[in-house]
């Protein structure tokens, strides 16, 4: 009887301590600044009938600006990811 009692006490104590392995708290997916969600535009084209260098130069400079706008978006996406990952990792550290 004593043996049964001891076994039951040990078993019941162990069962009482059965726990989940992860804390059931979920973190919301972080939001992104709306500007970064806009896709990059296509490059401008030159009027095919133009013979003026100024027209080509104007389009080329516009395209350079477009490139830098797009580059800033990509850089900001990388920055966003790095920052948000650091913040997220701190929660479950």
């Amino acid at each position, binding site marked *: 009887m004593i043996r049964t009692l001891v076994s039951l006490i040990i078993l019941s104590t162990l069962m009482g301590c059965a726990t989940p392995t992860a804390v059931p708290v979920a973190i919301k997916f972080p939001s992104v600044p709306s500007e970064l969600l806009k896709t990059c535009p296509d490059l401008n084209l030159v009027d095919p009938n133009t013979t003026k*260098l100024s027209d080509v130069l104007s389009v080329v400079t516009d395209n350079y600006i477009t490139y830098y706008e797009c580059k800033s978006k990509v850089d900001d996406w990388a920055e966003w990811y790095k920052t948000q990952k650091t913040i997220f990792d701190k929660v479950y550290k």
Partner: protein
Amino acid sequence: MWQIHWIIGLIPESVLIKIYYFSLISGIILYFGSKLFKYFPFRLVPFFGQYPKLTELLGVFLLVSSIYLLGSHSNEMVWQEKIKEVEDKVAIAEQASADANAKLEIEHNKKVALLTERKVLYKERIKKEIVRIDSECKLDPIVPKIHNDAAKNPYRKKEGETK
């Protein structure tokens, strides 16, 4: 099993603890008492004295179930504490995330403003020097064609193309 925990969860914690300890003490008393109920004068105790085996079983049941419930309760408390800790961390992280986004948005807007300023500046410079730029150079029609071919997005699907 969750139904049992749900029902137990409806009872206030302070009452629960008292019930658990009461069961534990009753279990110990009944179990060890059942050994005495076989002998005089303890066997004269109503019910328990008449059924010492049943008393022993009841004692064991109370002892085991109260130990289980006490263990479960203390374990639950530890987990509740952990959940609270993580919830606090999540709230801080969400605030930090929002702050980081606001900062990033400000920086991005600054870059866009600078680029818009530069765009206007270069347009003006071209406009100012337009006569000089176009005076000595007449472009061959192949130049805009090559430029446009290179500027076209190679990944863009052609009209009517599905894949």
